[in-house]
């Protein structure tokens, strides 16, 4: 049985990968057989697990992994926000900047890029100009760049936590009720790290 949003079409979910290690996506895949339940409830319309180039319109829920570290991240975050009803800040990098933001204490990122691309003995290269997106001066948490509807901390959030949050969200949207009040059972649902 497929579930529909209030407008009578199937629910559409997406995932996005910004400045993170993809661990949150790995944890998403750890949903294992729950992925089948999910596929019954919604279509996965965008993300690193699909081969879609442009972020599509009319998405009901997007899980966004990663902090906002470069110009591409900013653009994707804005596209997600413009086309999604419920944006989930997915994992500690999105929620706090986490590991990705460690470089903030080191100041000017140009120096870091020079270290990696120019001074590294194995590369002996030059400063990258195209393909590699420009780094922002400081890595930001996702909510500092776009408004967020639901926060799901964890490094990564466990599959159990993803399941509880996502299924509650989808069921509520299918019933035309918007964002449910997510009851936190305790550390299993809400915990940094």
């Amino acid at each position, binding site marked *: 049985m497929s579930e529909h949003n209030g407008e009578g079409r199937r629910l559409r979910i997406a995932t996005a990968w910004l400045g993170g290690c993809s661990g949150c996506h790995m944890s998403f895949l750890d949903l294992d057989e729950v992925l089948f339940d999910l596929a019954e409830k919604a279509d996965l319309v965008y993300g690193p697990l699909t081969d879609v180039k442009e972020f599509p319109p009319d998405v009901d829920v997007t899980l966004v992994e990663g902090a906002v570290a470069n110009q591409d991240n900013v653009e994707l975050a804005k596209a997600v926000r413009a086309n999604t009803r419920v944006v989930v800040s997915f994992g500690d990098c999105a929620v706090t900047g986490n590991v990705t933001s460690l470089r903030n*204490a080191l100041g000017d990122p140009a120096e870091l890029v020079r270290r990696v691309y120019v001074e590294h003995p194995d590369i002996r290269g030059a400063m990258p100009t195209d393909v590699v997106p420009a780094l922002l001066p400081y890595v930001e948490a996702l909510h500092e760049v776009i408004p967020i509807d639901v926060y799901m901390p964890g490094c990564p959030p466990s599959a159990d936590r993803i399941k509880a949050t996502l299924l509650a969200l989808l069921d509520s949207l299918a019933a035309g009720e918007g964002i449910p009040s997510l009851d936190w059972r305790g550390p299993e649902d*809400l*915990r940094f*790290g």
Partner: protein
Amino acid sequence: MSPRNGRPNVPVTIDGQDVKAFEGESILELARRVGVPIPTLCHLEGLSIHGGCRLCLVDTGDHKLKPACATEVTAELDVTTTNAEIREHRRRIVELLFAEGNHICAFCVSSGSCELQDLATEHHVDHIHYELGYERHDVDASHPKYVLDRDRCVLCTRCVRVCDEVEGAHVWDVAMRGNEARIVAGMDIPWGESSACTWCGKCVVVCPTGALSFKGRATGEMRHDPELVAFLARARDEGEWIDRRAEA
């Protein structure tokens, strides 16, 4: 908690429950004795009272909230330990502590044994409303056995107090003010060069966060043991030396 003589005879109401408090007892001591939970961070049984973190704020019907750990009961006091306003204050305090330091649990030695991390869960902190600070302090890894990571310090002064009051060595102090405030050994010397340090490790086991840890521990491997101090205080005051391992 020091031993009390006689029977409790001060009438107090706590969350609607009529109880009797000891003369001079703090609201926190009373609450714990009658089984009412109040969150704390700087307070540690067995040490002097600091009253700095403000997590234990309670409502006594006065015009301002009071820290339960540093407020003595008075007759007919009517205490509310939790309501929406208090919970909101506590949540904001936890968020400010996160914002002030660099409390990235994902690569902290104390993840899983951290009172700040637990407080965040308890107070439903799912993100930080304030701009987050970056690392700005030096790590002191000069001691052969222990490490001080100042960006993870919440300035609870437990380490300062336990070293002074229980070990009697007084290695630690708080230097500077405001955003610059930090824990220093001696007159701001590397910890490893402190001749006062006895290597007892009490500061390390009482630290509520990953600021003080045993050297060589990787992410999530540190386990603190703050209850050690209450045990030592009881042993000292009451001459009661039981084997803690047997007790556990």
